[in-house]
């Protein structure tokens, strides 16, 4: 099963990054929303993005043929290969070096959320054990 880690998007493409162990792989597809509606991806909501991710996850689970498509996509784009790999598995055969900060992480979307203002019961504890621990850690630093 693939676990999708990052999604990069622009108006035309959706790029899905998958991390497996120390390796990162990616799959670039036409933006499915462009075909489904006139929505532009740069205004997409977090919920829509998650539903796309889930759709992709299901497709990847269900259709093993997609593995060879990923392989071809990656092969045609000159991605690095490792020598000692299991050639049965695309997951370990292809390595794509990428910086995570370039990729999409969903922003929390709480703008449409109203929450109750139930009063919380906050516990308190004496902080001596914290100041003692900090003294010991600061001694480490000084050494």
């Amino acid at each position, binding site marked *: 099963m693939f*676990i*999708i*880690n*990052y999604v990069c998007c622009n108006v035309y493409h959706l790029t899905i990054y998958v*991390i497996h162990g120390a390796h990162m792989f990616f799959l670039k597809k036409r933006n499915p929303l462009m075909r489904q509606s006139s929505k532009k991806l740069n205004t997409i909501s*977090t*919920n*829509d993005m*998650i*539903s796309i*991710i*889930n759709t992709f*996850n299901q497709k990847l689970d269900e259709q093993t043929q997609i593995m060879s498509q990923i392989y071809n996509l990656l092969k045609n784009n000159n991605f690095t290969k490792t020598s000692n790999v299991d050639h049965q598995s695309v997951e370990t055969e292809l390595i794509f070096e990428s910086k*995570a900060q370039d990729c999409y*992480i*969903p*922003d*929390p*979307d*709480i703008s*449409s*959320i*109203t*929450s*109750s203002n*139930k009063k*919380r*019961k*906050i*516990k*308190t*504890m*004496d*902080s*001596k*054990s*914290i100041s*003692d*621990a*900090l003294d*010991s*850690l*600061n001694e*480490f*630093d000084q050494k």
Partner: protein
Amino acid sequence: MKIIGVDIGTMNIVSSCMNAEENQMQIDTMRNMFLPVSSDVLETNELIDTQLDYIIQKDDNEKDQVFIIGDDAFKFSQIFGNEIKRPMNKGVVSAGEIDAIDVLTVMIERLSGRCKDKGHAVYSVPAEAIDIKTPPVLYHEKVFNRIFKTLGYSSKPINEALAVIYSECRDSNFTGIALSFGAGLTNICCSYKGQPTITFSVSRGGDWIDQNVAQSVGVVNSRVTNVKERDLDLMNPKVGKKREKRVREALVFYYEDLIEYVLTHFIKQFNQNIDMLDIDEDIPIIVSGGTSKPKNFVELFRKVFNEEKDFPYDISEIRQAEDPLIAVSKGCLIYGLWDNKKIDSKEPKQSVESIE
């Protein structure tokens, strides 16, 4: 600067901060769960009169969706027998829950508040599991960095079991082995003078116990959780009415199985890494986490541990964290305060140099 320590657990979120004026640590906890409620059961305008912790959000069709969150979700599910939803699974953000990230953001906001000025959050993350393939922790970390950023905090993750060491091992100079028995995973860290030397997790925890007991005895998971958390004594399960007694007996069986499973992997990992670890002193083992809260858990742990003969190091003691539910959050807070002090002590020095 406002500094908070947040234990982001599969079952509970615990947030702590210092109240410097009163020399006190403030702690707030919330169950990491939510319960969607149909408008047939509870209308939006009726919610205002209740004492429930809830959120209302618009769905894609601009229709109100009501989620009861936290402890109230747990209580509500007990009354109506509904299965609750969990934003996290196996220690990380649940891939299957579409509302997970938004609900988690609101929960953390309720516990820690928004930070209008400078704020810094240190939060716990699990280690990669060694016995199953779990979603990578990196994505989970990035999601929480975004959540804290949305709430006005810079943030830093630390290993959950290492946080227990910071909280509980001052007397041994932050050398020790911590086992944090959570709901999704059991996290393990061996630390030498505050530096993690071995960290890993195994895929079994409180949820594994609940699911197995529920299947074995034929009750819903949340009812098992309720019995487990109410007054379970692992050395004396034969109390209560017949059905409850069966639940308690099954709980003891699966608790023992969990400890055996964790210790098997624990001993194997330490034996595999014996060349890397040259510790010449007796080390303490600290047991923590919500799953370790039932009475006599440590006694059961000691019993199983003493039956194992292959552990390669000498142990000075096996003890429970002072408060197993708070230890991770407290450790995160200690680390955050320490880290911030280091940054503070560097900053004036740099400015003096720049003036010179």
